């Protein structure tokens, strides 16, 4: 009976070693504190209004809040990894047990990619895409809310092992046969699977949503070749989501069937084929890298022209390069496992395709630089992040091309050289891009800019910290250090470099602290940094809305005739005669939150083999979906009079 009710869940699942227990207590404590605070300040209703909002701007903010919290979690993992590798040498065993160390690097990778990078990207998309194409909303506002809540549930599931159970000790992609039941009998891999499965389905729905939004919701006159390059980058990135994420869903599904139902997809016995998993997961995983970095390219393509006072150099070649990268990104996945032994011909093909992808990327770098050439450059913080990006990303690109030579890759494979390379791309590309975007678009939503001086400090701490943390890893990789080492021999002489890398990680943490300080100081002293609706002399339509933008973004739908539409409007001094019309916007809906909760039950039930709970969750999701999809009254109307009141009070366009 207890087996039926609780599945594999026993009291001992709640017992952890002091370090993990401490993190678990801190997490639960923070939640309790938040609940007490909400009750004390009577803010529950306010919170519920946020949670149930279908306004993409609010959903975007929630994405970013989750991503920032997860960034702090991921950073805490980094500090543990760095401490372990700097101290666990020779006779000293460091601070972590081997098993715990493995759980931590697995969690670090998974969290940083799925819940930080993806969260930031979808946050920026929600905030910027509708406004930049002159639209009032995304194509499917309710699905957008469901996407977010599935993402949030994935986040909960990946943090739950701190309190109950354990996390996967199998690395961020959980290769079988190690991740099969035979070698990983605990719930760790199941947490990994269901956290990613649920968040991944959310990402897939977001991909469809933004793709359709861009195709269908653009302002009249904005033809495809008049779209801002950021929108192009999102369109390409979302096509990748549409093609790549179903593969992830299928692959995780099969791994889970192996573990739950005793199937033999990827087992080492029974006729399974573990190499199939590695092919499939990278057929998703390589495009995933571009899903993250293409929007970052798009962000820089917006920032560089604005701060150079020039239009973007080579718009058409930028678009062609984006499309080329999109297509090529599906032809390189095998370079993640040249050593598998696919044969010389196959390895050569994938090696060459990998080198080819550097060409469109190079085109983009030169276009940005030519945009700056003879421009009137303002070295604001977003521009600093861009300069940092161009230098670090180019270094990363070159080390990538080194590894694309299969013969050389046999040396680099699985070494810290590789670890340094992909951090180079993700931090230098995606993370710097996100910080540039944050500083650049912050005043759009708040009405004041961020403190420039603290922003500069944060940038330099990040840049120096980043170089200190990862250049030693390149060198260590050459010296033969493999990834995921929890202990090494003193005679290897690696400790010095590991200590330098640790200092680099500390500097990055100081950079993050500086950014938190920057936001706090900027909010406190916001009166000093008040700006109007167009603080940077912007070029694209998002600067044509009021600050902060009203829920419907545009009172009057603008008609676009050129690229850089807002710039043209300013140049031609177009003042649109305000004609107010009633606007229909989607009502708040709590059903997205409820679908998220039921999905949580499904995930938790399957992880702990509490099958009745999973069934309850599944039936719940289906019923809520039927309720929502068969209801006809989901919109509310803001009358023309109310729109006029809002617009004259806010002074919007």
């Amino acid at each position, binding site marked *: 009976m207890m087996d039926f009710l609780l599945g594999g869940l026993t009291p001992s699942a709640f017992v952890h070693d002091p370090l993990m227990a401490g993190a678990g207590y801190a997490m639960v404590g923070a939640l309790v504190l938040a609940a007490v605070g909400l009750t004390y300040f009577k803010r529950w209703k306010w919170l519920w209004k946020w949670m149930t909002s279908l306004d993409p701007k609010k959903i975007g903010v929630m994405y970013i809040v989750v991503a920032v919290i997860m960034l702090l979690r991921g950073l805490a993992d980094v500090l543990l990894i760095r401490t372990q590798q700097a101290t666990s040498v020779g006779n000293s065993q460091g601070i972590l047990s081997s098993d715990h160390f493995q759980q931590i690097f697995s969690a670090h990778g998974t969290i940083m990619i799925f819940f930080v990078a993806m969260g930031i990207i979808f946050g920026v998309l929600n905030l910027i895409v509708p406004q930049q194409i002159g639209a009032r909303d995304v*194509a*499917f506002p309710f699905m957008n809310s469901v996407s977010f809540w599935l993402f949030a549930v994935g986040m909960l599931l990946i943090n739950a092992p701190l309190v109950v159970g354990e996390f996967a000790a199998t690395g961020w992609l959980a290769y079988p046969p190690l991740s099969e039941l035979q070698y990983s009998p605990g719930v760790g891999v199941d947490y990994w699977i269901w956290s990613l499965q649920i968040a991944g389905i959310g990402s*897939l729905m977001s*991909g*469809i*949503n933004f*793709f*359709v939004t861009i*195709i*269908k*919701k653009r302002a009249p006159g904005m033809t495809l070749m008049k779209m801002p390059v950021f929108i192009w980058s999102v369109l390409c990135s979302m096509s990748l989501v*549409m*093609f790549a*994420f*179903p*593969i992830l*869903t*299928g*692959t995780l*599904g*099969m791994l889970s*069937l*192996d573990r739950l*139902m*005793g*199937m*033999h*997809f990827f*087992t080492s*016995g*029974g*006729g*399974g*084929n573990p190499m*199939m998993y590695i092919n*499939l997961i990278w057929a998703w995983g390589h495009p995933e890298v571009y899903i993250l970095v293409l929007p970052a390219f798009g962000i820089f393509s917006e920032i560089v022209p604005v701060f150079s006072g020039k239009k973007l150099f080579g718009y058409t070649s930028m678009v062609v390069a984006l499309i080329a990268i999109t297509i090529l990104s599906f032809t390189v996945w095998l370079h993640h496992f040249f050593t598998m032994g696919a044969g010389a011909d196959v390895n050569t093909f994938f090696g060459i395709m990998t080198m080819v992808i550097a060409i469109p990327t190079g085109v983009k770098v030169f276009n940005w630089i030519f945009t700056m050439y003879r421009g009137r450059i303002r070295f604001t913080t977003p521009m600093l992040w861009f300069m940092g990006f161009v230098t670090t990303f180019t270094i990363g690109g070159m080390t990538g091309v080194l590894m694309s030579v299969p013969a050389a890759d046999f040396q680099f494979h699985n070494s810290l050289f590789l670890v340094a390379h992909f951090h180079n791309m993700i931090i230098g590309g995606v993370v710097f891009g996100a910080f540039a975007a944050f500083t650049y678009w912050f005043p759009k939503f708040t009405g004041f800019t961020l403190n420039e001086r603290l922003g500069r400090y944060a940038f330099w701490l990040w840049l120096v910290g980043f170089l200190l943390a990862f250049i030693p890893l390149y060198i260590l990789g050459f010296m033969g250090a493999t990834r995921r080492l929890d202990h090494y021999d003193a005679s290897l002489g690696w400790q010095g470099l590991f200590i330098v890398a640790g200092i680099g990680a500390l500097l990055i943490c100081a950079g993050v602290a500086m950014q938190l300080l920057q936001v706090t100081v900027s909010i406190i002293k916001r009166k000093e940094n008040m700006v109007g609706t167009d603080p940077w002399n912007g070029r694209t339509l998002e600067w044509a809305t009021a600050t902060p933008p009203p829920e419907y973004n545009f009172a009057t739908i603008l008609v676009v005739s050129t690229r850089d539409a807002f710039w043209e409007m300013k140049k031609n001094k177009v003042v649109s005669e305000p004609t107010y019309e009633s606007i*229909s916007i989607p009502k708040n809906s709590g059903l997205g939150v409820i679908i998220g909760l039921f999905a949580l039950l499904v995930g938790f039930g399957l992880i702990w083999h509490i099958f009745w709970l999973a069934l309850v969750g599944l039936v719940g999701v*289906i019923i809520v979906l*039927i309720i929502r*999809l*068969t209801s*006809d009254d989901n919109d509310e109307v803001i009358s023309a009079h109310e729109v006029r009141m809002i617009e004259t009070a806010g002074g919007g366009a």
Partner: protein
Amino acid sequence: MATDMKRVGQESSTKTLGFWIYIMTDCVLFATLFATYAVLHGNTFGGPSSRQLFDLPYVFIETFLLLTSSFTIGMAVLSARAGYKSRTIGWLVVTFILGLSFVTMELTEFAHLVADGNSWQRSGFLSAFFTLVGTHGAHISVGLLWMIVMMIRIAKGGLKSMDVGRLALLGLFWHFLDIIWICIFTIVYLMGVL
């Protein structure tokens, strides 16, 4: 009023595009399962191979049921567009019965395999077979559930334009599952026996 109609028109074309793209992503999911099946097809691990297991005439009846249901749901969508309420429901009932018979036959086939000791645990080949065919069957079941909801709504509220639009999407979904089944019939059963 005219702008209202225009807005509704735009909305439904947005939904149609979104649904087409969903179908495309589902296609990629099936492609993943087909690829895995192709790779694992020979991995019988000492167990029976596809040649020993599959019964073509039985599967042919399943195929016949599903293809016919694609025709009948097409008739349902046409009737709905023409505004014939009871005829629409009638064609939906026929489609539902055909779809349900298909799922029943598939489950019966599965039960026989399991009873003979050839379950999904037997070999990599059978894992891939059950998952590929079962995923299609699960999709058909979702379609059946959707059909029930549509029948109830049309019976209660008549043929509102929203519901006609939803019925058209259901039709699209059903035809898509038919195409997937034709691929399954060809690759799994026909090529498995030949």
